[in-house]
Structures are given as C-alpha cells and as structure tokens.
C-alpha cells in the first residue's frame, strides 16, 4: 500500500510562528514523496487541534502522521492518542521538535525556518519506516516483598498486608525483631524493647496475609514496579522459592562500626571495654549475665565511662542516636547500681527534638558527669582501666573506670552492597543506600518500585524508622492498586538469532536483567516483559544482532540522512 503521510505544523500561539516561516515550510514539504497533506494550526495540542488532526487523518486516508510542534516530553503521548482515536497505530507517528530545539534556541528567522525544515523532513523520512508495534499490558501485581525483619520491616509489613495484598517478609537470621529485640529499654519512656517488639511480631505472625520467611536470603530480583520476579533461598530447608511482587521494600538495617580497628579504645584487648550493643545485651534477662551489669570478674562496676563518637571521624558522619541512647544507659546504670559513678567523654552532644532536652536534664540530675574531651585513649594496667584525654582547654587529664562503654558509629548492614548491585540502586560514599531525593523522595529509591527505609538509608531512631515504614507503605498502597493494568514498553530490544554470536556483551550492559543466554542455541534472548528499551544492548552489540524497536538502524539512518542533507 502506498504511504500517505500527513504533516501538521503547530504555531504554538506565537512560540513557533514568530520564529519559523511556516508557509515556507509547508511549501517545501507538500511536494515531497508520500506527503498527502501538509497543514498548519494555531495550537495542535488543544481539543480543537486534536480534532483537526483526527478528521484530517480520516479525510485523507493517511497511513502515517508527522506533527511538528513541541518536545516529545510534552505532547508525544497526546498526538499518539489522537492517531489511535483515528484508527491509526500510534507508533506510525513522529514528532519533530521545532519549538525547544528550534524556535526557542535560534535567533535568526531564516535559519530557524531552515532548521525546522530539516527536522520535519527527517521526521517524514523516518516515519515511513516505522512499524506498527502492538500495545501490550499486564495485570499489576499488588504483592510486596519486604527485606529485613527488624522494626522497620515489621511495621511496613503490618501496614501493607491485606486481603488483596500479600506481603513476603524475608529475614536472613532465624528470628524477627532485629536490633530492637536486644534493647532492654527504649528512650525516652524506658519501655522494654523486647516487650514492644514481641507484641509487634505476634501481631505480624497472626496476620495471615504475611508470609514470614526467616533464615532466607533473596537471591534475585528482576523486573519493575508492578512486576518483580523474586527468587528466595530458604537456607534451613535448602529450598528455592519463586514468586512475583509489585514492589520491594529494603529494610536491611545497620551494623556497628568495629572499634577493634582503633587500638586507642582498647576494645578487644581490655576485659571491660564494651560496645553499646554489648552493654544492651548485658541488660536483658536472656543475656550472658542474666540482666545484671557485671564486670568480667563477676563484680558490679564502681565507675563507668561512656565514650562517644567512636569512629565518627573515620566514617565522616554523626550517627545521631548515640548521645540519646547513652542517656538511657545512665538511667539503666543508676537504676541497677545507684552508687555507680558515670562519666561521659564527648566532643559534641547531639540531643535534638522536643522530648530529649528534659530527658538530658533529668539524667544530669542523677549525678552523671559530662566531660568535654578530645583524643581519648583507653589503657589498662591489669588492675583497672585508665582513660587519658585532652580537656576543653587543651590540657591533659585522666580518668579511672572499671567499665568502659563505647558508642560506635552505625554502618550500613553488610547486605547493602549486595542489594545495591542486584537492584541497581546507588550507594553513597558511606555505603548507605541512596534515596530518590533527599527532600522530595526520602523513602523511594532511584529504581521505581524499590523503597529504602530505616537504617539502610543512614542512621535513624526507632521512631524515624517507623515513620519511613509507613511512608513507603503509603506510596506502595497508592501505586499498586489491585486490578490496575500496567502498560508495557513496546519499544523493546530484539536480538536476531542469526546475527547473534553469543559473546554475552549485552548481558553485561543490560541494567534490567532482561537478557538471558540460551545455552543450547548459544545466543542471547530478550525478555520483553523486563526490557525497558534503553538501547544499551543495541549500542554495545558488536555484531549488529541487537536492535531496538522504533530505533532501528534504517529508521535512524533515514532521520540522519535528512537532517544532514
């Protein structure tokens, strides 16, 4: 069938008409081969303009349409819909951007007209080579995968689980509860951590819409918002579980900076130097001392020094919760050992927020000493621990203590790297997973459908982690409505079986895991559901086997040929 191309040039009010001589453009374009009609309109994106194109398509029996107007970012979809309404496959359309890329950036009217003409000729030449790609859609999957069974993961799962939405909660250890389970008291109300988390875990386990997978590792996640394929290994049973979800929440938590690397704190060398988490453990009834604060020799300490900011300089950030929970430690110490002498060695005290100031003042009232210090060094002489430090005035001073509690920095959990790589989520230079936007997208990630909450993003308090759980859950609830259809990308990659040499270069450059290798045929194969049509494979393929639909070699050649003519 002969091609019948319609060309419509938009005046865009005065935006285009002022800079481009549209009559000259139409006069040059009309006689071109295959052009059936070429016309101008005041504002093609308006209802009137859209109707004008629709009628013209029918009247002239067009097979292809070119619109010369604004950026495809603005109205490509608008005009593709017009084509569809007129019964034309929307891919048989091309937009020439003569506003942003021409009228707005070219000062001379003659030059702007020449440039517009080149762009329109290129679009006409290209559109004749377009293929009518068929729209594809699939059911959106409302289920959610939550990775990490700490407080953040538990709270997100609770909000999300519902009769029409299943939640898979994957935890690599054998039990839920994360770090909070080990905190005997929580600031500032001194509630029991295990008590609080046990209630939350129970409510989660009672929820039949949550499948809890402990001792399990996520092996693979492929896909996009509404359609992720997940592979989980259940380590205890050595079994593999495959399922699909629509969104993924990463709540992989934190670990403590290891103070062994900083010998000046004596950690690992001296008996009674503990990290904050070890001190917490000492305070829970199931802990090694049955909940009693004891030295290694079995006696209670007479004096305790709490050293702040361990690793802050090395890591390059403040972990923001240590100062606050150290005040909680004071309360725990004084409650159990009213006579104990407690000294804080700190460089900056960070106690923001409405409830902490009072907590701090009340703690001071218990007779706790706060010493501003620098260059702290912990040494032992076999009898006790001696701490040397520099005072605020620059002088040298020292302090004896039976027990030292270090407050090390919070680091991303060791899994952060694994998930960053698996999901293509960037990490900051400290190793934390990066949010989509610090201010505007605090719980979303750079990958649509993947959310990052709690300490996986950076140091957070329990309440902040929970706020983020609920925020991510809210975003997921509004995006993954059960029954909603997802429109799939039709401009996807295809790999020619007869050209592919099986070098696997495309597998290395595909950011979506959309290409697999067929070992029997020794060629690469594209999964069209996972492909986003980024074109990396087509650019990297050394043998011309990979090409991108709608951006094929002949289509691009036709366009370039006319632009450069």
């Amino acid at each position, binding site marked *: 069938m002969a091609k019948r191309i319609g060309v419509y040039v938009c005046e865009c009010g005065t935006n285009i008409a002022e800079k481009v001589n549209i009559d000259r453009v139409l006069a040059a374009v009309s006689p071109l081969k295959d052009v059936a009609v070429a016309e101008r309109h005041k504002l093609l994106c308006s209802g009137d303009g859209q109707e004008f194109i629709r009628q013209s398509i029918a009247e002239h029996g067009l097979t292809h349409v070119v619109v010369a107007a604004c950026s495809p970012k603005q109205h490509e979809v608008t005009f593709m819909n017009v084509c569809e309404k007129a019964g034309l496959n929307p891919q048989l359309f091309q937009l020439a951007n003569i506003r942003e890329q021409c009228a707005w*950036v070219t*000062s001379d009217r003659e030059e702007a007209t020449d440039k517009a003409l080149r762009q329109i000729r290129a679009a006409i030449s290209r559109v004749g080579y377009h293929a009518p790609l068929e729209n594809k859609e699939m059911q959106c999957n409302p289920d959610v995968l939550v990775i990490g069974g700490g407080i953040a993961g538990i709270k997100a799962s609770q909000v999300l689980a519902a009769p029409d939405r299943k939640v898979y909660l994957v935890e690599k250890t054998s039990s839920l509860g994360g770090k909070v389970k080990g905190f005997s008291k929580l600031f500032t109300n001194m509630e029991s951590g295990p008590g609080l988390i046990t209630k939350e875990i129970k409510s989660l386990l009672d929820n039949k819409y949550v499948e809890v997978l402990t001792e399990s590792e996520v092996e693979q996640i492929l896909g996009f918002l509404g359609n992720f394929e997940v592979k989980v290994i259940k380590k205890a049973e050595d079994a593999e579980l495959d399922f699909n979800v629509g969104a993924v929440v990463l709540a992989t938590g934190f670990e403590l900076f290891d103070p062994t690397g900083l010998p000046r704190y004596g950690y690992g060398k001296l008996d009674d130097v503990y990290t904050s988490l070890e001190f917490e453990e000492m305070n829970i009834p199931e802990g090694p001392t049955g909940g009693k604060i004891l030295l290694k020799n079995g006696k209670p300490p007479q004096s305790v020094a709490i050293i702040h900011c361990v690793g802050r300089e090395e890591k390059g950030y403040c972990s923001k919760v240590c100062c606050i929970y150290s005040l909680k430690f004071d309360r725990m110490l004084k409650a159990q050992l009213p006579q104990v002498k407690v000294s804080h060695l700190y460089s900056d005290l960070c106690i923001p927020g409405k409830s902490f100031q009072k907590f701090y003042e009340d703690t001071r009232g218990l007779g706790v000493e706060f010493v501003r210090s620098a260059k702290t060094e912990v040494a032992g002489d076999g009898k006790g621990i001696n701490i040397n430090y520099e005072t605020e005035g620059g002088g040298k001073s020292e302090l004896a203590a039976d027990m030292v509690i270090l407050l090390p920095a919070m680091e991303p959990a060791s899994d952060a790297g694994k998930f960053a790589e698996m999901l293509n989520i960037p990490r900051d230079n400290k190793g934390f997973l990066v949010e989509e936007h610090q201010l505007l997208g605090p719980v979303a990630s750079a990958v649509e459908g993947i959310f990052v909450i709690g300490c996986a993003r950076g140091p957070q308090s329990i309440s902040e982690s929970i706020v983020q759980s609920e925020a991510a859950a809210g975003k997921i609830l509004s995006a993954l409505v059960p029954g909603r259809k997802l429109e799939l990308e039709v401009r996807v990659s295809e790999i020619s079986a007869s*050209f*592919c040499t*099986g*070098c696997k*270069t495309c597998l290395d450059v595909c950011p979506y895991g959309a290409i697999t290798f067929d070992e029997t045929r020794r060629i690469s194969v594209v999964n069209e559901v996972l492909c986003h049509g980024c074109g990396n494979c087509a650019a990297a393929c050394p*043998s011309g086997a990979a090409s991108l639909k709608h951006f094929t070699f002949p289509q691009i050649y036709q366009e370039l040929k006319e632009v450069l*003519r």
Partner: protein
Amino acid sequence: MVSTVKGALFPAEGGVRERILAFLQKAISQGCFDAVLIPVRAPGTDSFTYSLVRGESLLENAYPLPPVMSVQGAKAVSSLTGHGKGKKKIAAIVRPCEARATAELFKLGQVDLENIFLISLDCPGALPLADWAKDPQKTEEAFTEILKGKASESLRPVCRICDRFSATGAEDLHIGTLGAEKGGILLIPHSPKGEGILDCLGLTTEADISAWDAAVNSLTGQRKEQRQKFMEEFKSKTAGLDNLLDTFSQCINCHNCMRVCPICYCRQCFFDSDNMKFAFADYLNRAEMAGGLRLPPETLLFHIGRMLHMSLSCVSCGACEDACPTAIPVAQVFSLVGGQNQEEFDYVPGRSRDEPPPLRVYEEDEFEEVEQSCAGASAQQEAPNA
C-alpha cells in the same frame, strides 16, 4: 617485563624447531596432552596450515614457527572449540599475537579453553604471504637467517615494530628460546594448567632465566623505539579524512581483511548485511549531494567501522595486511589506531584472560577531560542566548 617469572629448562638438542618438537613429543608420550594443534607443512607442498597431529606426523611435518602466518592461530582454536569443548586435551602452539587474540575471543565467548593448553613461543616475526606465494624458496632462506637472529627488512612491517613478541600472560605456557644457548628450551608457566605440564614432565621451575629475560627486555626496548618512530611518521601520512581516503583508495571491497581477522567473529558482517543496502533513490540523493558517489559504496566506511569494532581488541597480528590483494597497509593503520585507543583505556588486548574488554566496563570517573570539553563546548554555544 617478566623478571618475577620462573621457568624450567627442557633439555633438547638441535635447532629451535627440533627442540620444541622434542618437548611436544615427550609431553604427548607422557600423556600431558592428547594431541597438538600446530602449523603443519602439507607433505610435498609449500603450504602451511594448522592441523591436529601427534606421533610421527608431528615430528616430520609440524612447524611451530613457520615463515608465514597463513592462518591466524586464534582462528584455528575458535574453529575447533567455538561450538563447545571436546574431551581430548589439546596443546595449541601459537605465536604471542595469536595467544592474545585467543584470549580476546575467550572473553567474547568464541573459544572454549577448558581442554586447550595454550602454548606460545618467542616469535621471530613472519614474512609477507605474498612473498611466500611468489618465491617460497627465497623466502624460506630469508626466514632461516631471521631465525638465526638477524634483523631483516623482509619481515612484515607490523612484525618489525612488534614489541609483544614474547610471553604475554594470556598463555598457559610460554616457550622461551631467545638468548638461550642450545641444549634446551625454557618452559615458563603462566597458569595452573601450564604448571601441570611441568609436573607431568617432572620438571621444576628452577632454571636460570636471566639470559632469556635480558634478551627479551633488550629487544622489547629496541622494538618500542622503532615502533614509536615508525608510528610518528606513519601517522603523518595517514591521519585525517583525505589521507585516509588516499590510504584506502586501492580497496576493492573484497572484505578479505575482515574474513581473516581473528577478532572479526560476527556471523555476518554488518557491512555485508541488508542493513547497508539502500534504495536506488538514496544512492542518487547521495550522489547529488556529494557531487558523485563511488560504487560499490561505503568502502572507507567499512574500514572505519571495522576499526571502531576491532581496535580495542586488535593484537596487530598482520593477518589483514597479508590478505589484502592490493597491498593496503591495513595492519599498520589498525596497529596505529588500536594502539592509541588501547592506551586511552589502559588496555592491552590479551594481556590477561580475566581483564574485561573496556566497552563492557562502566567507570564513572574515566574520560573526565572529554566530559569537561563537551560541557565547555555546550556552555559556549549557549552563552549568546543566555
């Protein structure tokens, strides 16, 4: 270059060829490998071709270092294993450039080296195929002189400036003959498989390799100098579109250079495909625009396209130039362009089997100067409107 490397002495008598063959024969009889893939002189003829041999035919007809490179060794290895490995263990005897091309093909999934022992040799260079076809006897005599250590202008131009004529790191085992006195050859392992061959022969890596090392280093230095000098001059003759058009003006579009290139592994060359065939009207358009059109078209584009595809993996083996019926210095152009591109990425093709090809690796902080110059250019363009 390889001073930390250790080697073993395999005792043998005779010329280089005899000593190498004695080693291969011994290794086969000890069961170190089952057969050898090696250039063989077809009995009663002047043609060399890679063949799988063992026993008598190995000793009588095999030439580990033939005077010419009639088939690139990497092509031989890929035709044997490109569609999967076999059960037999095969020792492939190749020149260093062939070993490096094989390593590149390995990275691109075009060879299976699991049951291949890649063994390279100190390479004296090869003579042009055309000379051999014209006068085999005279060419062989010239090669005999070269084997004795004589520098010769009759070597192929890329061989004369080759600075990677010895161990490369891509092979399992390297045979060192340079600077070594008669009485044996040095066996220098570069992989557990190479070490396995020494174990199999009951050899230990205790040989004094300093004389070989010194000879390799000294010749490498000389060649580097020669290469630099040559390339400076050659660049002035070939750089720029006009010079490039001149250089390739004799091209008859036979695509032989592509067919013999070990790295050109596409099933069908893009330039032979329908993607490069256009309607009559297109050609007419182009002829009108340019004031004329050379037919068949895309002759220079083919070479530039091949440079774009191949230059990061080009090992300067010279096969393309040997195959050119119109004596275009294809290999020299590729060596010049390839050398520059490889330097940009700090990449030496075939230096290691594990080093990924540069275009598969994304590094955020590379080519910042290019980014900056682009940013500068666009800032300048935008300035008048700002």
